[in-house]
């Protein structure tokens, strides 16, 4: 057994264990932290596949931004920790059944109908150089430049919708209303009173 296979087995075993802990722990904070662990472990596995840039991005973007967002929300909502209640026990056989049936179906599909099942997963793809990051940047900025711009638009949309959804207008805030300021007419400001006696 060579070093690559040993590394793969150790990290994939840990990844499966942390995934089980994500879906079974009763405290959402623990779930989020186990999810962070599983992202780290899959970053190692992606590194083994030769996708260096994506494994760094997984740690920086997912662990650094998305999971911190999750933890913020968990701590903001102050949910009471759910006990293992009757519904959990009721759905446990369904969950295990779905897990086993899907696994058997898909793995049988892979083994029976997928050719070259023993093909080596680790082969680096060279477009312009040996470096994965340079290759990815070359492909991203030439062939997929339109999609790259659309991805930027999607992120902008995410920012805007998150702000619009959670924005609360405080009625005590003093602010100017430009529409009213522009629409104002002379009779709103100036009142001429006739017939006053000195």
């Amino acid at each position, binding site marked *: 057994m060579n070093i690559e296979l040993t590394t793969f087995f150790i990290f994939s075993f840990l990844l499966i264990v942390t995934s089980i802990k994500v879906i079974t722990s009763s405290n959402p904070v623990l779930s989020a932290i186990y999810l962070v662990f599983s992202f780290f472990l899959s970053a190692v596995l992606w590194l083994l596949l030769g996708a260096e840039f994506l494994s760094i991005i997984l740690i920086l973007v997912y662990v650094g931004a998305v999971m911190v*967002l999750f933890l913020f929300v968990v701590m903001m909502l102050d949910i009471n920790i759910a006990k293992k209640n009757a519904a959990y026990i009721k*759905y446990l056989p369904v969950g295990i059944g779905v*897990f086993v049936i899907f696994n058997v179906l898909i793995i049988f599909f892979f083994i029976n109908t997928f050719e070259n099942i023993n093909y080596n*997963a680790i082969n680096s793809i060279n477009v312009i150089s040996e470096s*994965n990051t340079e*290759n990815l940047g070359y492909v991203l900025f030439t062939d*997929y430049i339109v999609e790259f711009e659309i991805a930027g638009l999607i992120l902008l949309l*995410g920012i805007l919708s998150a702000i619009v*959804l959670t924005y609360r207008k405080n009625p005590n805030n003093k602010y100017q209303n430009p529409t009213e300021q522009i629409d104002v007419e002379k009779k709103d400001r100036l009142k001429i009173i006739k017939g006053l006696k000195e």
Partner: protein
Amino acid sequence: MIPISYYLILSTIIFTLSVAGIFLNRKNILVLLMSLELMFLSVNFNLITLGNYLGDLTGQVFVFFVLTVVAAESAIGLALLIVLFRNKKTIDVDDLSELKG
């Protein structure tokens, strides 16, 4: 060398675990969103592995875009969750049955 089937089976196991997690955690939308993240992770595993198999970088580029969309999705989902908690004081899926059919 690592056979390609090992990676595919690993991603299958993670995907089915997250499907089972959606069945199990009916009490908490937050854990449902985490199961969704795990599901995206397994799909990314498949994309990178099969991209390597075909000798094409398109799989990795697609993972890049999937990461972008998932970041936007989780931001919007968590914002919706906060609005929901503000209005209903609960994130239990069973308490959200407003429409009586």
